[in-house]
């Protein structure tokens, strides 16, 4: 089986090899080893990009392979971030509060501790009560479980409802977008219990590792992200090859025909939808400790559409295409918006890329959709001629 799998997917080996080399090179050149050619902040950017690649792979599986254009996968990504963010914020605040209470003459009671933590966390939204959803915030294990369970369950319920009523195509896209919008609006409320507009912050400080330098922490997260990406790549490559993959791609090409052949289409779609949602949640949980802050704006419907843009530009229906799209567009985007691109002086008007980058992105996206439906990944087809 393993042999067939690899021979079917030569890209897996190449990808894993490249990822390993990349990870090792970055680690060696980072500030941890003392070389310092790659700054800590750039290591974080690279780590974040790996996480984005992971969610892009998930998007590619659900859209490029199964034909479900989900505009909600970045919401699952955000949920994962919030789930881990709750623990990070709680544990860190607890540490700070315990230190400040320890200097007092009387040892604090549990109620006093919880009050003080609540004040620290929810002071910005005018509250000090812990909402019910924070019940397990002190428990890393439970919150890690939530990273997986909450997006998974949400996707399961939502997908079950939607697929059962045979909502397909653009309707499904709009429905997933509505779900994302509802989630974002919910998070924007101050009484949602997740600090409303402020979001969760200070996530780059990992409790228990206060003494460790950010350079080390960021390298650790970078490596963890690389591992997650590699594992997800292998996992998803395995899912989309073989019999299961054939059925899933059959659903994309002609759902009715697959149903007539006797397959329970809804179960397959639900499986793909849920699995990719879980992967998106894990990607989010790895992303936000590197980003340091999460707020509801990150979950807004536009983010999920950008995800689709990455995958489309990178090339749908091939996992490495999604990675290429995510890396290429997100790095290019931060290069342009960060002022890295030189301004173009036309004499009568100066094109400042910070302003015009989105116009360029939008137009190139139209061009890719119209003329290069296979995306950047499609270029590889010219390099690798398959024996027919």
């Amino acid at each position: 089986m393993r042999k067939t799998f690899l021979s079917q997917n030569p890209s897996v080996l190449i990808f894993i090899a490249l990822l390993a080399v990349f990870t090792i090179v970055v680690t060696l050149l980072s500030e941890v080893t003392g070389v310092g050619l790659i700054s800590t902040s750039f290591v974080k950017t690279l780590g974040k990009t790996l996480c984005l690649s992971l969610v892009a792979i998930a998007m590619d599986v659900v859209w490029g392979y199964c034909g479900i254009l989900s505009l909600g996968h970045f919401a699952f990504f955000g949920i994962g971030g919030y789930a881990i963010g709750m623990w990070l914020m709680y544990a860190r605040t607890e540490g700070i509060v315990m230190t400040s209470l320890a200097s007092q003459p009387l040892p604090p009671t549990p109620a006093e501790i919880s009050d003080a933590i609540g004040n620290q966390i929810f002071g910005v939204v005018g509250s000090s009560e812990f909402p019910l959803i924070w019940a397990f915030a002190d428990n890393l294990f439970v919150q890690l479980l939530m990273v997986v369970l909450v997006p998974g369950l949400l996707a399961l319920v939502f997908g079950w409802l939607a697929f059962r009523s045979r909502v397909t195509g653009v309707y499904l896209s709009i429905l997933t977008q509505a779900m994302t919008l509802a989630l974002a609006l919910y998070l924007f409320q101050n009484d949602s219990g997740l600090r409303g507009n402020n979001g969760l912050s200070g996530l780059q400080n990992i409790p228990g590792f206060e003494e460790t330098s950010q350079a080390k922490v960021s390298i650790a997260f970078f490596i963890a992200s690389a591992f997650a990406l590699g594992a997800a790549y292998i996992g998803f490559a395995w899912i989309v090859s073989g019999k299961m993959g054939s059925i899933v791609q059959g659903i994309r090409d002609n759902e009715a025909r697959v149903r007539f052949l006797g397959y329970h289409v809804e179960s397959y779609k639900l499986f793909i939808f849920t699995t990719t949602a879980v992967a998106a949640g894990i990607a989010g949980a790895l992303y936000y400790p590197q980003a340091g802050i999460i707020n509801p704006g990150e979950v807004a419907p536009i983010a999920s559409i950008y995800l689709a843009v990455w995958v489309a530009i990178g090339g749908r229906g091939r996992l490495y295409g999604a990675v290429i799209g995510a890396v290429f567009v997100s790095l290019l985007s931060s290069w342009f918006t960060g002022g890295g691109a030189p301004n173009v002086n036309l004499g009568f008007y100066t094109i400042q890329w910070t302003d015009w980058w989105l116009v360029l992105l939008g137009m190139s996206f139209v061009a890719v959709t119209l003329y290069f439906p296979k995306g950047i990944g499609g270029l590889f087809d010219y390099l690798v001629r398959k024996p027919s």
Partner: protein
Amino acid sequence: MFRLFSLAVSFWLLLSSSLFAQSLQDILQTHAAEVAKPSRSSVSVVLDDLVASGLPQALPFLEAWRDREIVQRESDGLFFRSTETAGEVQLLDLDSGEMIAAGDQDLQKVRPNGGVRRAIGDALVQFQLSDPDIIKRQAAVDAIARSMDASQLGPLQASVAGETDANLKRVKQRLAGMLVATFGETPQDRIAAIEELSGDLSVDTRAVLNTILATNSAVSETLPEEGNLAKVLTIGEDISPEDAYSRLVAENLAPAPVSKVAIRDALLAHMDGGSVGGVPVSELGSDVTRARAYDRLAEDGLVPPRVSEAARTEAVAAHKFYLEYVESDPSVTDAARAALNGIETSVALSQTVDLGLDALSLASIYFLAAIGLAITFGVMGVINMAHGEFIMMGAYTGYVVQQFVPDYTVSIIIALPLAFAITFAAGVAMERLVIRHLYHRPLETLLATFGISIALQQLAKNIFGTQARPLTSPEWLDGALVFNDVIAISYIRIAIFVLALLFLMVILFVLKRTRLGLEVRAVTQNPGMAASMGINPDRINMMTFGLGSGIAGIAGVAIGLYAKVTSEMGADYIVQSFMTVVVGGVGNVWGTLAGASLIGFLQKGIEWLNPSNTLAAQTYMILFIILFIQFRPKGIVALKGRAAAD
């Protein structure tokens, strides 16, 4: 009161005739002693004469007198108004207003006491209430309405008869009615006034009635025989046991409970080396151990003992908690209660109507935003994520036109067709360049139009900046149609509603009664067959898409009048617009109407349940829609038969 009344009337008569050509200084000199050293009993003579004189300079004198700015020159006893400019005291002649340098003359300051100043203030109110200038009269009435007081009733009633402005007279009568209801002398007067008020839905009437119905909360061991009892409070229902007990504490009927903070502070205060009350400090990390240590301290008499839960329950049970009206006469409070209940019922009724109107206008906004989409998405099946940006383009067109045409009415008349033309052209261009190539790949249409959407949004940001641009409505759209104090709807909302209706009719007409509409429906149902009948599907698709986009442009102008014009305004409507079309039922203009109504009324309904939180309302509405689509995937108005095939 009669004195004040006659005083005001005589003032009025004299003001018009101004018989005596007396100077103010003369009058003051006649009463020199009373002016210089006024007392509550003697001042009225001066005031009467001043009012009777009808001199215009009496008003500023009264103000200066009240504000303690009047001085008496000791040499000749004349009165002046003193002002201080740049550290130098100057005297103003009271009649001519001439400036006289004070020099080092002997000046005696006139210092009226509080009672006198109140009397002067009352006289001032009369002056102002009967001032020939309507703006001053209005201001005086507003001042009374802001802080009602028994002493204002007389002057106000006195000024009603002489009021020349019919509007202000009504306001004065209404205000007098409120004053009588609150401060009237006999209960009969007050009840009559209260009954007069009962048809009035305004907020200040309700405030007056609520003031009459103000209650004090009280507690005693048995209910009092006397007094005007409003309500006996039931523990656990009207008042929580904790609140009841703290009220007992406030009334000194029970010992104060010892809070956790108090325990902590007491322990800190009596810390003795490493332990408090025999308990080591390191063990004091829980409420139980802290309580034990505190009890030990209490046994030693160092701190007051804790009040046990049982003692508190017992104390609460032993007392009656009730509300007592401040007003002692039950007949007045009964009348006020009845009037208020009546008003509240009609207010609730009016609010429901108002909510309905609000919902209707929200529904028409959604309808306007979605109607163009109903054509491109509903009829043609093309997902156009840039639809919101067409709305934005229409709104910016209106803004740009207003920069060149200053007359708002004309500019709107120009902007509407211009917005249509521009977005029509944009729509046609987009259809030709992009969408035409993607008719068989709907998901990719979504993505391509999304690319156009972000490009257009950023382009608008580059051209017009990020701040909101105003699109000012013509004057005749300002203001609101007011039915009563609760029901009101702004003219802009009415205009949007009318525009929405107009659009509905135009689109139905175009689709059902014109050659173009026939061809559109033919191409939608079966392009191949339509083509063989001599219809050019390319042209029809182009025209249809242009029509839908053009309508979005006009909607943009309308929405821009109602909300601010920003580059993101389209994005705010896009998801709701798609919802509207999907919920209503794709492929049917009536469906869009149904969808917009459902969403508009639903959102307002949820907002009404939880008025503080519009975000929550939107969240719940979207969740409802997601569920709704589960049960009616084809929308409210589902097409049947062949046309329904995807």
